[in-house]
């Protein structure tokens, strides 16, 4: 049995969604959320926090300018200390073939946008405990 999920990293370029998702996870789900607005920012934050508490899970947007979600994932996996951090994608692209392209080792699940904010934290917890 894994330790319960307590802190997550949220990578999302849209400030409004970042705010809403952050609130949903923190206030409804009681999680510690660190939010970043881009892949490079998230990588920097991870590097910085490496010796302190690394996030247990990363919630990752797919479509982001500059570095997309999958590109961020490649960068992340290239660093040995982050190889094991599981990822959950959040995407507004919901076509089956698009979802199929996102599924890869280390990606626990895909959450479709728009999500129900009151159930987002539960959903993430369920994915976490299911892995």
């Amino acid at each position, binding site marked *: 049995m894994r330790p319960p999920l307590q802190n997550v990293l949220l990578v999302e370029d849209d400030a409004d969604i970042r705010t809403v998702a952050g609130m949903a996870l923190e206030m*409804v789900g009681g999680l510690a959320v660190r939010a970043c607005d881009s892949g490079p920012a998230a990588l920097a934050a991870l590097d910085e926090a490496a010796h302190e508490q690394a996030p247990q899970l990363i919630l990752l947007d797919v479509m982001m300018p500059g570095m997309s979600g999958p590109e961020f994932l490649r960068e992340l996996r290239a660093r040995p200390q982050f190889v094991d951090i599981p990822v959950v994608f959040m995407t*507004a692209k919901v076509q089956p073939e698009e979802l199929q392209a996102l599924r890869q080792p280390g990606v626990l699940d895909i959450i479709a946008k728009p999500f129900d904010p009151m159930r987002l934290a539960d959903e993430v917890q369920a994915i976490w405990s299911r892995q």
Partner: protein
Amino acid sequence: VDPRRSSSFLALRFGFRAKIDFILGLGLAILVAVGLYSYRSIDALVQSGRDEGAALAGQAGLEQALGALRQAESAQRKYLLSGNPDDLAAYRQAAAEARAGRHALRDFPADDQPQVFAQLGQLLDTWLDRVDAAAELRRQGRAPAKGQSDTAELERRALQLADALRAGGRRALRNSRADTAYAAGVTAYFVLWGTAFACALLLWAMVVIHRYQARREEVERGLREVDRLKSEFITTVSHELRTPLTSVRGSLGLLAGGVAGPLSGRAGQLIGIAMDNCERLVRLVNDILDSEKILAGKMPMKLEILDLAELTARALRESEGYASTHGVKLVMQDEARSARVSADRDRLLQVLVNLLSNACKYSPRGGSVEVRLERVGPGVRVSVADRGPGVPPEFQPRLFQRFSQLDSVDSRRKGGSGLGLSICRGIVERLGGHLGYRPREGGGSVFFFELATVSQPAEVETMEKTA
């Protein structure tokens, strides 16, 4: 594609048909005319060749008859002088030849001078008879009477007639040769120019067809490009719509959930309205995407063997909440205990939920929606029956078309996109089934779909493979 091009495409199509019909029709008519004319001419040539052959044979017969007659006469004179039986035999042979030649005369085409021919025939016969009679008298040792053996006058007249016949034959032959030469010339001319003209027409038709083909390919390329752009546009727009909807839906959800503090009754009601409509927008975006996929034939299906009874039960459970908001009861009339079909679970569930929610929407409060699962032939039918107002007959043909709803007022009241049924039909047809409607006895609607069942495990395997 700009409208000018599409209208020119129509003009091209009609122009093309008329042109091709005209060219090929004309070519065909020319070929038929040339064919008939050549047949008639060649037939006439053959006939005149035959006539000419007969005329030549007749003339040869006449010459032979005359020649043989002279020989017979000289052999007879020799016999009359010598009385030698050998001379008699020679004479008889020559006489037989003369008769044969006289016989061949029958083929002489003497249509224009039958009397001459008949006279000549009689003269030759008389001539031969006299010569014969003289020879016979000599054989018996008697001298022929003076006038009886005199054939000079007969010969003179016969030669005159023969000359006339020959001249007539030659004239006829000359005329007929001139006729046939002229007819052959005209025929050759007709065949040559007719065929050339028909070939030119065919060439023209080929040019027209090729040009049409090229234009059509160009138009089709354009249309395909437009289709691709439309798909891309719809996918992009649906994604772009979802992003702001996510924050709106999220904010409203958090507000309604009391995360930002308790709401007054009215605020809660308003937030509820905003949330419902937000959900509706999301559904609309999903429906437009689905509809586009179905229209482009690009909706992927993840086929698996599943129990339709079980899936129907799940759809009922999922629709229960929605039904209760409309004050409607969902009733399952489970006639077939289980029915295994090969289908995409999520998509088929989408169809069932859509039919159920339609039935709930249109049912009167306190009514019930009856779901029935039954075996029909080699398949299974799921029908969803309500006691709503039903579908007016004049609307039924458009029932499964995109964006068709009874009227705009109705659309607002019932909160649909007008895409649901067209998507359902698209999905069921992609699964090889059929989705239909029939009015319910005693009022209301029945929507049903039929799918082929899968029974044998072996069949299951092959289905999965082809899937």
